[in-house]
Every structure is written in structure tokens, then in C-alpha cells.
């Protein structure tokens, strides 16, 4: 049993750690804002600053770590991606190293030029339009696309949590077969900005205290005609897109939880070592020590689970159960860590403008989808039954 991270990945991890420490962490004030009333809080970095960072990342050979080499990326495998994501999650600055949704990896040659490459180079933004307003759960999809004279007509509304930008296109999921459910009748369309009948509401840049939370954009399709060549993948096969890459993303998101939890632990440790009560540093108090111990143990367990599953993914072994376990445990873990950090900070860390506040807010947001966690439990249980032999 070898728990050592391969040397080349250690180097990669160290390079990203330096990048985060030297380039991203100093920018946290820009995102969190300096004004007492948080009026200058921003959701994202200013575009010029971001372009500068993108240039740096490209020079360091870190741009497109999750993108396959044939699409112009520098694929580093699942374990490499986990190590990188863990480091990137340790800052509140939202910067990703050329991350593109694997749904777009299935673009054909022409679509790669028009859609994938501009997204990869941050010249265009892809608005992922899956969820629909007014539904009880995310999985309920009813938007229809009607086939007329060789093209499709979309009608309905979608919500998108993607990042808004000047130039964009929508990746829309709509039902093409009457009477078919989402799994067998769903087709994916690429709808350009400015297409007739396609409009976006609430896509403006938000600043101030509202920028602490992501708000969905509303995409409206009113008799929007889409050419058949703008179909992504095959008709009715939308949920088969990116199948080769999507499952391992679940592990990488687990690594994000670990990164966030690690930063919370680091901040909590500094707090414990610097604050005193009754003449003693609070790090000597049993309740604070208990909280630190519990947090560190949970992070360690999640990290081991993630590395092992990522290692299996890189070896081509089945990871469905492992990835579901990672998501289940890591999501609960980061919530637990944020909760326990309150023991050290003597209160929930909700003082606006502090990194801790943003981290705890993110941690709670990660764990707020109980529905998704129940699905993970189902996946794990199904896999256990599958393996049961009489």
C-alpha cells in the first residue's frame, strides 16, 4: 500500500499552492470588498485582473487542467485535478484553471471552433440551462422543443447559475419526444446570443452585499428557432453527453470541499492561537481543542477517501460507488467543519467582509442540497445490492 502522491503531481500541487498564495489570496480583498457597508463586494475579479491571471496560468502550463489534451488542455488526471482543486478552494477568489464543463467536450469539429474554444479561452460564456423555474426539484424538466422543417422551435423558461458575460450562448436541455421522460427524450441545443426569441433576464453584474450570493439568470425562449446543426450530441441523448468525464467531476468537487474545510481549519487555528480568554489562549480550552480535533479528523478522512477514489479513477476502475461516497461524505464534512468552527470563533462566523464568512457561507451552500445527498445514498445502496451474491 503506497500513500505517496507521485512526484510530478507533488510538483504540480506545490506550483498551484504558490500561485494561490502569491497571486490569488492577496486579491481576496477585491472580492470581499473594503467598504464597511460591503458596497464594493464583487462576485468575480475585474476582467483585466482575470486576464492577467489567465496569462500567468497559461505561461505556467496550468490552463485547462480538466480539459483533455485533444481539445487543447493539459489533462492531469483525476488525482491531479483533485490536488489542484483542493488548493484553489483555499481562497475566496473565484478563479479556475481553464475549467470547462465536460458537456461541451462532445462538440463536433465545427462546434468546437464556434463554442468550445471561445469558452476555453474565456472569450465567451456558456449558460448551462437545465433547471426550470417553479419546479419542486431540479430533476423535473418539461421544456419542449418541437421539430419543424428540419429545425427545432424552443418554448419555455430556464434558470441558469452560470457566470454572466458580454458574449455568451446557452446550452439548453429540452424534451424532443412527446410522451418521453427526461432520460430518454432530452436533447441538448446550443443557442447563440441574439437568436430570435431568446432573451436573458437578471444577467447584469451584481456588486455590493448581494454579490455574496449567486443568483440565477432567467433564460426565456419564445418560439426560438434553432438549426439542427446546433444540436449537441444526438437527439434524445442529452444525458449521455460527457459521460466519460462527468463522474470523476464528483470526486473533484469533493476535493473542493476539503480545500474549503482546510482553509476554515487554518483560519480557526489562527483564531485559537491569537485570542485569549481569562488570561489564556483559547487554544488551551478543551472545547476549542475538541472542535479542532474533530475538524482535522474529518478533513483527513475525506482527503484519504478522495485520493483513493481519484487514484482508482485514474486506473480506469469503476468509481460510481466511490464517487457517490465522496460526495456524500465530503459535503456533510464541510458543513460539519463550518458548524464546528463556530465553537472556536465563539459564534457563527457571519461577520460580513471576512474570508471566514464567505467560506462558511460556501460550505453551507455546498451541503444545502439534501435531495442530491439522498441520491448519492441511493447510488451506493444500489451498488451494494448489485454486488451481493447468494
Amino acid at each position, binding site marked *: 500500500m503506497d500513500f505517496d502522491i507521485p512526484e510530478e503531481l507533488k510538483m504540480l500541487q506545490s506550483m498551484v499552492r504558490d500561485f494561490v498564495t502569491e497571486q490569488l489570496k492577496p486579491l481576496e480583498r477585491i472580492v470581499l470588498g473594503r467598504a464597511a457597508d460591503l458596497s464594493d463586494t464583487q462576485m468575480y475579479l475585474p476582467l483585466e485582473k482575470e486576464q492577467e491571471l489567465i496569462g500567468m496560468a497559461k505561461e505556467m502550463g496550468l490552463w485547462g487542467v480538466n480539459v483533455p489534451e485533444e481539445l487543447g488542455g493539459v489533462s492531469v488526471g483525476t488525482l491531479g485535478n483533485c490536488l489542484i482543486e483542493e488548493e484553489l478552494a483555499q481562497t475566496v477568489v473565484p478563479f479556475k484553471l481553464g475549467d470547462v*464543463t*465536460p*458537456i461541451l467536450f462532445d462538440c463536433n469539429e465545427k462546434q468546437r471552433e464556434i463554442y468550445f474554444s471561445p469558452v476555453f479561452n474565456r472569450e465567451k460564456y456558456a449558460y*448551462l*440551462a*437545465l*433547471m426550470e423555474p417553479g419546479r419542486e426539484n*431540479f*430533476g423535473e424538466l418539461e421544456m419542449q422543443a418541437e421539430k419543424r422543417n428540419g429545425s427545432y422551435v424552443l418554448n419555455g423558461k430556464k434558470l*441558469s*447559475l*452560470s*457566470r454572466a458575460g458580454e458574449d455568451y450562448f446557452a446550452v439548453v*436541455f429540452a424534451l424532443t419526444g412527446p410522451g418521453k421522460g*427526461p*432520460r430518454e427524450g432530452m436533447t441538448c441545443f446550443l443557442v447563440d446570443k441574439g437568436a430570435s426569441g431568446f432573451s436573458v433576464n437578471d444577467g447584469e453584474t451584481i456588486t455590493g452585499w448581494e454579490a455574496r450570493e449567486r443568483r440565477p439568470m432567467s433564460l426565456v425562449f419564445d418560439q426560438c428557432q434553432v438549426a439542427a446543426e446546433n444540436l449537441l450530441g444526438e437527439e434524445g441523448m442529452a*444525458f*449521455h453527453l460527457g*459521460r466519460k468525464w*462527468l*463522474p470523476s*467531476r*464528483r470526486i473533484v*468537487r469533493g476535493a473542493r470541499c476539503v480545500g474549503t474545510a482546510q482553509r476554515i481549519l487554518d483560519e480557526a487555528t489562527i483564531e485559537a492561537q491569537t485570542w485569549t480568554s481569562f488570561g489564556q489562549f483559547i487554544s488551551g480550552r478543551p472545547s476549542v481543542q475538541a472542535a479542532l480535533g474533530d475538524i482535522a479528523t474529518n478533513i483527513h478522512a475525506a482527503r484519504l477517501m478522495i485520493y483513493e477514489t481519484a487514484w482508482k479513477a485514474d486506473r480506469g476502475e469503476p468509481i460510481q460507488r466511490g464517487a457517490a461516497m465522496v460526495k456524500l461524505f465530503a459535503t456533510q464534512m464541510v458543513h460539519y467543519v463550518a458548524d464546528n468552527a463556530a465553537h472556536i470563533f465563539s459564534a457563527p462566523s457571519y461577520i460580513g467582509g471576512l474570508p471566514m464568512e464567505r467560506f462558511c457561507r460556501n460550505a453551507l451552500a*455546498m451541503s444545502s*442540497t439534501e435531495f*442530491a445527498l439522498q*441520491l*448519492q445514498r441511493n*447510488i451506493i445502496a*444500489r451498488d451494494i*445490492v*448489485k454486488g*451481493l*451474491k*447468494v
Partner: protein
Amino acid sequence: MPLREQRDVKEIESILNQVLNVASPPVARCRLLSTGFNPGHALNIAEDIGGHKECIGCGNCVDACPFLFREPSRREKTEQRTSMALESIVGADCDQCDACVLACPQVDTTIKNYVVQHRMIEVMSRLEQRIGDEDEPDLDLFIEEAVVQ
């Protein structure tokens, strides 16, 4: 009081297999093939119900059904928790896992033993086949992609 002798499966093996081969929850029919209430029951009633084979509405079969676990919305069709309710809401979608038979307190132990010893291998291989066939895409992966970008 001596325990009532339970049904000898050899006598009913053929009909029992027919029942178990039908894609519909078999619990009610297995209950009718059983010997019914034992005279030594612990219910506080004067009436002699020894040998009665009615469903007692405990709901164990409804709770044990894996199909209803996957599609809980079907439970909302009725508040009843009887074997008849189970047959009505599951019907031909039954997985034929026989979990309802094993969960029912009114089904004879001899029948349950038969199911475990003679039918489970077949059931498990059929369930495994079903799971193996399920090449269904994981919709949650797409939801995650849309929510966490």
C-alpha cells in the same frame, strides 16, 4: 397450547411457484396459501380468529417493497397499507423480489423458508440482471454541473 402446524410446502409447491412467477406482489396469495392466525395470538379479542387469513394491514409489505422505495410517489395514491393496496399501486411493475412475502406476518414460515431456499438465487440473479441492464445516465451529475460551476 400447541402451535398450529404450518402448511407443508410440498403440497402447494406447484401453485406457489405459479404465484411467485407472476409479475405482481405475491404476498396476498401467499397469505391465502398459509394457515392463517395461530390460535395462540396475542390480540385482546374474544372472537376465535384462529385460521383467519385476512390481511392485518400492518404495512410491512408496503415498507419492504423496493419498487415503492424507488417510486415513492405511488404511495400517495392511497393511505391504505394492506396487501391489496400494494397490489394496486405496484401491479405489473413488481420486481418479483419476494421481499413482501418475507415481511408479512401472516405468511407461514414454511413458505418463507421455501422462498429463501429455492427462489432467492433466481431472484438475486434477476435483480442483478436488472441492475446490470440499467445503463441509465445519472441526471444528478448534470444538475451538479449546472449548480456548481
